[in-house]
């Protein structure tokens, strides 16, 4: 029986911080690589993304 307070437990803290940082950094690196690739490959015109004429329904006049 303890004293009603948690002693130690740094292992859990390290695991939580480690997993969280690992996943977020990994996800960020993956997205950066994909975004860079799409930028290099297509020279994507920025304006087209927001342009009203770019409806994916393709019903432009």
């Amino acid at each position, binding site marked *: 029986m303890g004293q*009603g*307070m*948690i*002693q*130690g*437990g*740094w292992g*859990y*803290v390290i*695991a*939580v*911080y480690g*997993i*969280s940082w690992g*996943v*977020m*950094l990994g*996800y*960020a690196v993956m*997205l*950066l690589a*994909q*975004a*860079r690739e*799409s*930028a*290099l*490959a*297509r*020279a*994507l*015109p*920025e*304006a*087209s*993304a*927001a*342009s*009203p*004429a*770019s*409806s*994916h*329904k*393709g*019903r*432009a006049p």
Partner: protein
Amino acid sequence: MTSRSYVAGAALSAIGFALLVVAHYLGLFVAPREAMMGDVGRILYVHVPTAWGALLFYLGAFVAAIGSLWSGRRGWDAATTAMVEVGTVMTFLLLVQGSLWARPTWGTYWTWDPRLTTSAVLAAAFGVVLLLRRLIDQPARRATATAVATIVAFVDVPIVYFSVKWWNSLHQPVSSRQTIDSPMMQPLLIAAVAVLLLGIGLSVLRWRVELARLLAEEAAPDLPDAPAPLDLSGASGAPRG
């Protein structure tokens, strides 16, 4: 060639990570240990901002889904997808973090408490949205399905938030300034801003990736449902096949 959205997304993510380093340094080494939980209480600075972030980016996805259905523009479709994915990454982390925090404090990795149950439903529901998106080839139908599924899945967001008020739970109620001592509040708030900026940065990058995919798909000639040629204002030359 880099683009504005690439630079903005990368910069916001970098600022978010940098702020998170500051917040976590303060949380791990400067803030006092919690009176009952001791050092385990430091998980607060990761778990709570992740929870706020997850719910917030799902709210963003919900708004983008409305925009997508209203306007039919692919920009909104890509934004919906981006924020659903960022929210789901955070929700997945949330469940792992919570489980690792629950073991030393509550005495169990998992229990079917209302907050935990509704959070698991959240991850599953938005996981289905992302899966659904991969299963539909036709762009307009896919955009509609994504948006409708996002709006339906979003119902669980307020339920997760209010679960600790509506039902008996093991999970503690919502914390506030009154229930968190000020030396702990500072790293928590910095971490919350950091996760917000990081999430926005990642969403912008993900939005960009999705948009590029949608444009490439429309440019591909062998699609069964190729749309009419688009007026890509500012586009020079034909898109690559």
